[in-house]
């Protein structure tokens, strides 16, 4: 039987995407079987040969996820062989925190959001300074550059969310989920005034409303296409049930935005903003490296408390006696400090609540 050489070569290239050990064990056999299937299909016409290729390409993402061990922490999903086999052995309802510190790689991934944002702020500030240095007045160019940076951030978040979903929502991914959720909620009610891309005016939308969740829907769609399993969602629910501090970690991911909001209408705070994000990053690193529930709660609480205190002090001094043209009277630094402290206390309570409830739940389970 004549074997299409080009098809075999293309398939050999495709095989290189599989892990080396898998290839070494099954590569030759797979190549033989594929060549036989393609040769037989080709003898019956182009349509059948195309179907062989389409089947291979259709299944490739899921096969790679399984064989490369990208799926739900342990690699392939457990319901590969049986259709309903998940529950046992996971210790649902135990209220325990996993007693394993994250590796440095995982810890850095968990803190990545708080390191990436300073980089974004830095790039934007540098670009702004550069354009201003050349005498470029605020113009659609600024808005366009800002839009492009924002689009890059959204695309990056979407790619990360997809990856996290496919991997069964590992612990490092939780702050990204919180950040993405808050960005979507804010975009839902925020008008993109003056936003233009390549000269095209996009501010007519006024409010994005449900369109703000389109990226989340795309992430869900892509992740579902790749995994075709509810196992990642099950794992997410089980992990959160076993370690309630993960909810705190989701809320922690929203803090960069909460920290930026009080700096509205201020000038010259970019460097401080970068430093505050880095403080949050240290809290996230500490959280990822901790093994005990109270350590995890303390790491997140510490990150919030330190960054919020510094922001409160800076803003109090900044506004003390300052009067902008739109203000009827000079601002009061003391009033700023009180308002910021109140907001910080509320954030601390919200952040601690799931962790503390989780600790209480764990104690209750152990004493039953």
């Amino acid at each position, binding site marked *: 039987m004549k074997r299409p050489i080009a098809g075999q070569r293309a398939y050999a290239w495709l095989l290189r995407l599989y892990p080396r050990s898998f290839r070494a064990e099954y590569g030759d056999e*797979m190549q033989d079987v594929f060549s*036989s299937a393609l040769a037989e299909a080709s003898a019956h016409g182009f349509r059948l040969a195309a179907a062989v290729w389409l089947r291979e390409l259709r299944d490739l993402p899921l096969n790679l996820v399984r*064989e490369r061990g990208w799926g739900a922490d342990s690699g392939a999903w457990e319901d590969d062989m*049986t259709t309903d086999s998940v529950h046992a052995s996971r210790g649902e309802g135990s209220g325990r925190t996993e007693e394993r510190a994250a590796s440095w790689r995982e810890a850095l991934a968990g803190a990545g959001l708080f390191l990436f944002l300073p980089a974004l702020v830095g790039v934007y500030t540098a670009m702004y300074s550069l354009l201003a240095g050349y005498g470029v007045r605020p113009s659609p160019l600024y808005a366009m550059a800002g839009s492009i940076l924002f689009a890059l951030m959204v695309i990056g978040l979407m790619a990360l969310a997809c990856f996290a979903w496919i991997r069964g929502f590992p612990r490092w991914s939780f702050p990204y989920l919180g950040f993405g959720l808050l960005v979507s909620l804010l975009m839902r009610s925020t008008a993109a005034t003056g936003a233009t891309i390549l000269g095209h005016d996009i501010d007519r939308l006024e409010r994005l409303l449900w369109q703000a969740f389109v990226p989340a829907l795309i992430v869900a769609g892509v992740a579902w296409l790749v995994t075709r399993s509810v196992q990642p969602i099950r794992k997410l629910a089980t992990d959160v049930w076993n370690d309630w501090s993960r909810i705190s970690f989701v809320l922690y991911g929203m803090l960069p935005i909460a920290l930026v909001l009080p700096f509205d209408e201020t000038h010259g705070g970019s460097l401080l903003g970068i430093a505050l994000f880095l403080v949050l990053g240290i809290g996230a690193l500490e959280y990822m490296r901790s093994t005990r529930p109270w350590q995890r709660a303390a790491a997140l609480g510490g990150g919030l408390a330190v960054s919020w205190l510094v922001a409160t002090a800076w803003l109090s001094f900044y506004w003390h006696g300052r009067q902008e043209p739109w203000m009827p009277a000079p601002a009061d630094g003391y009033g700023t400090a009180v308002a910021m402290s109140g907001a910080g206390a509320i954030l601390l309570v919200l952040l601690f609540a799931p962790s503390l409830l989780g600790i209480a739940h764990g104690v209750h389970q152990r004493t039953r």
Partner: protein
Amino acid sequence: MRSPDARLDPPLTEATFYIMLSMSPAPKHGYAILKDVRFLSAGQVALSTGTLYGAIRRLLDQGWIERTEDPLPDQTARKRQTYALTHDGRRVLDAELRRLQAMVRAAGLQPLGEGAR
């Protein structure tokens, strides 16, 4: 109630079931399994090579199948690997067949409503 040992606990996925069913009468090599699965499922399950060998790897890991010598070696091609059900694999397949038969029997006892066929 389901057994705590999910490895021996059907239901199997459709693909796994047909792959194991294909090996049931005699050991088979990869291409024969691929064609068998399509035939046994009346064209409903068409496996890609990647999916077939992913399943074979997991079945080997589970100890439900094993590698055997090809009883009918192809003289023109290189030596082909064949796969056969193990004792555990046969038990799992039998259990799955009994489960499916029980379901079909139950469906036969129940008068089906209009539009159910």
